């Protein structure tokens, strides 16, 4: 964490309110995101207990598994989830625009431009916290190898149709969320803590309720009947209330954003309710005549409704908190480079849409060496891209880079025309800049500034006087046009305020990796013929 971020946290402690950690929004927020607030059963490898899901804050769809150990009920949950998520994804898959992509022609080996489709917008998934991201991945993993009755009539416990497809999409979104700067799947706590510094540790920022309490504390008159104090609270007090306050029954007033539930809820409320449901179901199954069955069915639906109400009471506060967080983020203006990164997300979405349409098999359990290396390279490249773009978009981020000696801002005190030597001399003006920053400049180091959205490079010539005086001379080397005279506006003039960075603004791709067939033996050799992945073995006590 930079010293600037540290200061922001300390100011938050002292003022009792979160302080800005960014002045623009660095992530895309869709106009119509799909919010997914899942809950799981403790101790099971992510056996879903329920979820609220939807694109409209006033029309959440509640999905509940009244007995999480029951495979059929879990499948019903997943099928319902697919009914909500897949139409949402589809609604973005149809609206396309024409785009160009360079591909290697398989016959000539030349790079050629191909006309392809690019989805005009991409669907966005929002989960409350980082644990929610992991859960999306887990759901994806558990579903994508399932077989439906149509795919394999012999399969025991066939999955409902479309469930394997949902698994592939969730896997894709879960993987994409690992790419720095992507916005297809966002964990709200991560995004909020990117933009605000609270007066608590980053560990405590993982609690959505506590995080929001710092950023947007509830007004003093908020719901007195729920026991909220009357006077204005500091962020610290409100956060502590969100973390710890319990009602008379010992239940948290602000339930955790999940997917895990509070043990007190499990033990005191949920376990008895599930037990009641089990008893009602057994009784219903043992009913001997129609009248008895009717009565017992009523008891069964009452028991199920009770579990549903309990689950809803836990997810609803988080659902509201997520929308509150989205409102806060929407109030920030979007950073200039966010659109460009979102276009990459659209490519990612379109690419997966095409793979599904082409009938490709689900993502393998383990990536082969080339795919894994490519993923890693992409993440590294996107990380540097993100760091550069965030600094260019946001003076507060740039301030951190200036403090670290990776950028400097100052005023042009002199600009002298000079020319390169050679047959056709080109303009190489010398610009003197006075700065209070302390950049770590090596001899002939390259520095860059943004000129109309494009990076202009300059070379560090040397200091005028002692380095401590902060007067340095730069030689501008490009973006001045083809003529002998630089194009107007392309060379800073005396009195101009300028900001140069020591890092590049645009990332070059790394060395090209070999084709999968050429994988060297050090990395396991060529992957060989692709074998379809076998579905997971089905056992009596599966949890997903």
């Amino acid at each position, binding site marked *: 964490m930079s010293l600037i971020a540290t200061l922001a946290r300390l100011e938050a402690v002292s003022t009792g309110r979160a302080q800005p950690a960014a002045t623009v929004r660095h992530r895309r927020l869709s106009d119509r995101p799909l919010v997914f607030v899942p809950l799981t059963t403790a101790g*099971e*490898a992510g056996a879903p207990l329920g979820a609220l899901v939807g694109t409209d804050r006033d029309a959440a769809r509640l999905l509940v598994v009244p007995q999480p150990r029951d495979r059929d009920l879990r499948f019903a949950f997943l099928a319902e989830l697919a009914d909500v998520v897949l139409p949402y994804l589809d609604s973005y898959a149809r609206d396309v625009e024409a785009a160009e992509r360079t591909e290697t022609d398989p016959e000539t080996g030349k790079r050629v431009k191909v006309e392809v489709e690019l989805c005009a917008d991409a669907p966005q998934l929002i989960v409350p916290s980082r644990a929610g991201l992991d859960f999306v991945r887990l759901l994806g993993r558990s579903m994508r190898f399932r077989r439906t009755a149509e795919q394999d009539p012999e399969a025991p416990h066939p999955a409902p149709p479309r469930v394997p497809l949902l698994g592939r999409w969730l896997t894709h979104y879960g993987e994409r969320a690992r790419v720095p700067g992507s916005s297809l799947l966002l964990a709200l706590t991560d995004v909020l803590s990117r933009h605000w510094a609270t007066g608590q540790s980053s560990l405590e920022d993982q609690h959505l309720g506590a995080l929001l309490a710092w950023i947007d504390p509830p007004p003093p008159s908020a719901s007195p009947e729920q026991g909220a104090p009357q006077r204005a609270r500091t962020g610290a007090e409100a956060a502590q209330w969100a973390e710890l306050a319990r009602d008379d029954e010992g239940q948290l007033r602000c339930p955790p954003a999940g997917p895990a539930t509070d043990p007190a809820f499990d033990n005191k409320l949920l376990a008895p309710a599930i037990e009641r449901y089990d008893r009602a179901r057994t009784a219903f199954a043992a009913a001997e005549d129609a009248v008895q069955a009717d009565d017992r069915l009523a008891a069964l639906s009452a028991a199920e409704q009770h579990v549903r109400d309990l689950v809803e009471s836990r997810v609803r506060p988080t659902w509201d908190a997520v929308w509150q967080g989205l409102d806060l983020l929407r109030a920030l203006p979007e950073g200039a480079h966010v659109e460009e990164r979102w276009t990459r997300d659209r490519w990612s979405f379109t690419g997966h849409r095409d793979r599904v349409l082409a009938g490709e098999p689900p993502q393998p359990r383990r990536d082969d060496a080339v795919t894994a290396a490519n993923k890693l390279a992409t993440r590294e490249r996107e990380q540097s891209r993100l760091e550069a773009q965030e600094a260019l978009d946001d003076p507060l981020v740039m301030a951190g880079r200036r403090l670290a000696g990776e950028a400097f801002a100052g005023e042009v005190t002199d600009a002298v025309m000079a020319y390169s030597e050679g047959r056709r001399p080109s303009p190489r003006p010398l610009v003197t800049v006075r700065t209070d920053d302390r950049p770590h400049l090596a001899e002939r180091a390259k520095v860059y500034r943004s000129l109309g959205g494009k990076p202009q490079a300059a070379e560090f010539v040397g200091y005028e006087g002692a380095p401590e005086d902060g007067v340095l001379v730069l030689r501008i080397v490009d973006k001045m046009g083809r003529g002998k005279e630089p194009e107007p506006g392309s060379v800073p003039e005396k009195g101009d305020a300028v900001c140069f960075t020591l890092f590049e603004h645009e990332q070059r791709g790394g060395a090209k990796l070999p084709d999968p067939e050429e994988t060297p033996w050090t990395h396991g050799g060529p992957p060989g013929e692709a074998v379809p992945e076998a579905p997971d073995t089905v056992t009596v006590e599966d949890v997903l």
Partner: protein
Amino acid sequence: MDKAALADRLGAPSGFGQSQFALTRGNAFEAKVKADGGAELLRLVHSRLDPGAEPPAKASVPDLSAHGPEGRTARTALALREAVDAGGWTLLDHPMLALDVAGSLAFLEPDAVVVHPDGSWTVVEIKSFPMLDGSADPAKVGAAARQSAVYVLALEDVAARLDPAPRVRHRVLLVCPRDFSNLPTASAVDVRKQRAVTARQLARLTRVEDIAGTLPEGTCFAPDRPAEELTAAVESVPAAYAPECLSACELAFHCRGRSRADGAVTSLGRPLRAELGGLSTVEDVLSAARGESGDPDDPAVAALRRAAALRAEALAQAAGREVADPCH
């Protein structure tokens, strides 16, 4: 000492608790792994750690019940010795070990210890988090490794009293459910590093008697004492709160409250404390940043002022964004 009860009485109850769902599932899984005289467990130990040894066709599972923790510890030590003398495979189900922690004995109960035919010992840890496609949550595996390292240390104490001292293996067996099923799978985890770290930390711990010696006469932590008295008693023991405590200690919320009241910067995280030099409270740092206190020649103070100036400049710039903006 019951720290959870103490925390309740101090008005800062701990958030710990275990869901009965997790408990049921954990117990069911452990029972399944150990079923049938531990046949499945021994098969896993054999295949993952000691494939060269004879297959564990029949193993002895000695009865370790005894009166009180001391009795069970003695019984465990005896069973270990007998198992080494007898040769062959032996499974010790829930043995009890004792470890000297800062001068007082702590009793530990590993899930299982296996004695190999060559006389060496292996710690087995059974966890209910899944191993998905051969890998498990690294944070949970790390916690399990640290826990097992403590058992390894305690076992080494027992081994050292035997002649010749049997080898305690530094690779423990972590048993987890496979994928989404309840079927066990296992992986050998090398705990040499965790063992070394724990051993070093244990050696450096201040002795409990020394801490007790500094307390005022009559300090008592019994939860039935009045709350004020308890608060004073807890106050008399120095604590260095950091956010990591929240996931480990029942008293963490109490200490956090104290730490925040003192304005300690460590309550925001240890790394943050590290970059602030000698400044340890929020007000110290902020007033140094504002230029109201602190030595400008101190590099930490100079860096703070520089950071504060840059931050103010950037925020002002963002506030008047329409003004000409060279960087953006």
